């Protein structure tokens, strides 16, 4: 019993710190941020930033000073980016990339909760910064997250319910069904809003409300926000990649397929972002509620259908 616990603890730590956790996720986050910028640049006929650019940006931001902050508000403002980074890193660590990597019943729910933390932190950060642009950005983020999260959660829950498990590794091992593909499409529709990409880049709409909730952030705090954004990329595309990827027994094949699929998804999302313009907030909200309606009908209908067949 004690031995089991020790081994479980060791695998959990290895997953959190090495693969797919911090040691893999931080360079992957920088790489995905670069892919995003490079893809947009190529789409616009530019050459784009050099390969190491997100890394240089991160180091440079670490070396900058921050404006003085005082009191509880200042303390909170310093805390939000750290909470966002740790939640996003935890979410990446939960992904069942390697076969037989452990995991527990219900880790899907924990993953969803952790994926939600960075956007909550962004909302809180905008409001605690006291800047009018931050507040507008936060209000937009709040409205947006209420609208897309219903589709997102519905998709994941219908996938989990149709396969009778809330464990990520069990889901990754099971063969996919039509309902799962429906769910993956629904998740893909939500990802641009979750990652603040065009056409749903409302919260950080540059040229419009400066940098939204990030307006008052500088230096190392901003570096943490960039990192948490990159980790969100890794976690969100990784979640889709684990749902798409077939189960492999060889660990290095599984890891390679995971990285390749995530890379493809980042490319797809960046190309969509470069090809579209920002929508208005009411158009966005209407779009997601219509999606909710369509997916709700489809998901409930197919779940019932699968019940009868079983």
């Amino acid at each position: 019993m004690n031995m089991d616990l020790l081994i479980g603890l060791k695998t959990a730590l290895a997953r959190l710190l090495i693969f797919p956790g911090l040691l893999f996720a931080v360079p992957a986050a920088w790489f995905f941020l670069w892919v995003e910028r490079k893809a947009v640049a190529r789409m616009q006929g530019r050459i784009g930033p050099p390969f190491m650019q997100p890394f240089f940006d991160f180091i440079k931001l670490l070396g900058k000073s921050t404006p003085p902050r005082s009191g509880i508000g200042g303390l909170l403002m310093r805390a939000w980016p750290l909470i966002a980074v740790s939640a996003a890193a935890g979410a990446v660590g939960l992904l069942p990339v390697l076969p037989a990597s452990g995991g527990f019943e219900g880790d899907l729910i924990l993953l969803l909760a952790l994926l939600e933390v960075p956007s909550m932190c962004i909302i809180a950060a905008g409001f605690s910064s006291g800047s009018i642009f931050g507040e507008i950005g936060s209000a937009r983020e709040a409205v947006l997250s209420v609208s897309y999260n219903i589709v997102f959660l519905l998709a994941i829950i219908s996938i989990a319910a149709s396969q009778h498990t809330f464990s990520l590794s069990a889901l990754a091992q099971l063969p996919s069904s039509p309902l799962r593909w429906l769910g993956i499409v629904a998740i893909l529709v939500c990802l641009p809003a979750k990652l603040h990409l065009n056409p749903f880049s409302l919260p950080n709409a540059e040229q419009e409300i400066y940098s939204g909730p990030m307006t008052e952030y500088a230096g190392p705090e901003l570096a943490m926000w960039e990192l948490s954004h990159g980790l969100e990329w890794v976690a969100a595309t990784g979640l889709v990649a684990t749902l798409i990827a077939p189960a492999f027994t060889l660990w290095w094949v599984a890891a390679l397929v995971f990285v390749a699929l995530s890379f493809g998804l980042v490319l797809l999302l960046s190309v969509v972002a470069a090809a579209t313009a920002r929508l208005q907030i009411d158009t966005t909200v209407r779009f997601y509620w219509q999606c909710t309606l369509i997916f709700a009908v489809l998901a409930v209908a197919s779940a019932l259908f699968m019940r009868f067949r079983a």
Partner: protein
Amino acid sequence: MNLWNKLMCYSRRHSPWLFHMNGGSCNGCDIELIASLTPRYDAEQLGVRLEGSPRHADILCITGPVTHNAVNAIKTVYDQVCGPKAVVAIGSCPATTNVFIDSRTLDGPLNRHVPVDVFVPGCPPRPDAIIQGVAKAAEILAERAAKKLPIAPVVMPLVGPGCEGACPCAATTELKNEEVRA
């Protein structure tokens, strides 16, 4: 210099984030600054990013002859940029007040209000000259942060038609223009 300082210096030189501020310019210089980010010149290759908030920026790009209305705004924004920082004066206006000299609505030139690191002359300067100025400013900023040097303004050479030889990139741009026309 140890390894971390070297890395920091290198990163600062390769990641200049700009904040663009109009101090009463005629809009000519502002258009050229934006043009330096477009596909033809693509300043992002040097890591340049135009930021929405002065808090994120390293380099403050100021255009225009500094009107009375703009003085306080410029000082506020200069204080909002977090250190280490540099200021680039774009165009002849912030350097000399240019064609607006002796106007009673002006309180220029710029270096009466904030310390300027790089002057990019021209009315308006070409996008190549602006990119060159920004790169110079990033270099100055990295060196000054590492060695705690005092501010010493640098005036960039004129670039463009009629000043061939001043800068090699001017000649190549002209060549490309000829090719496009041909």
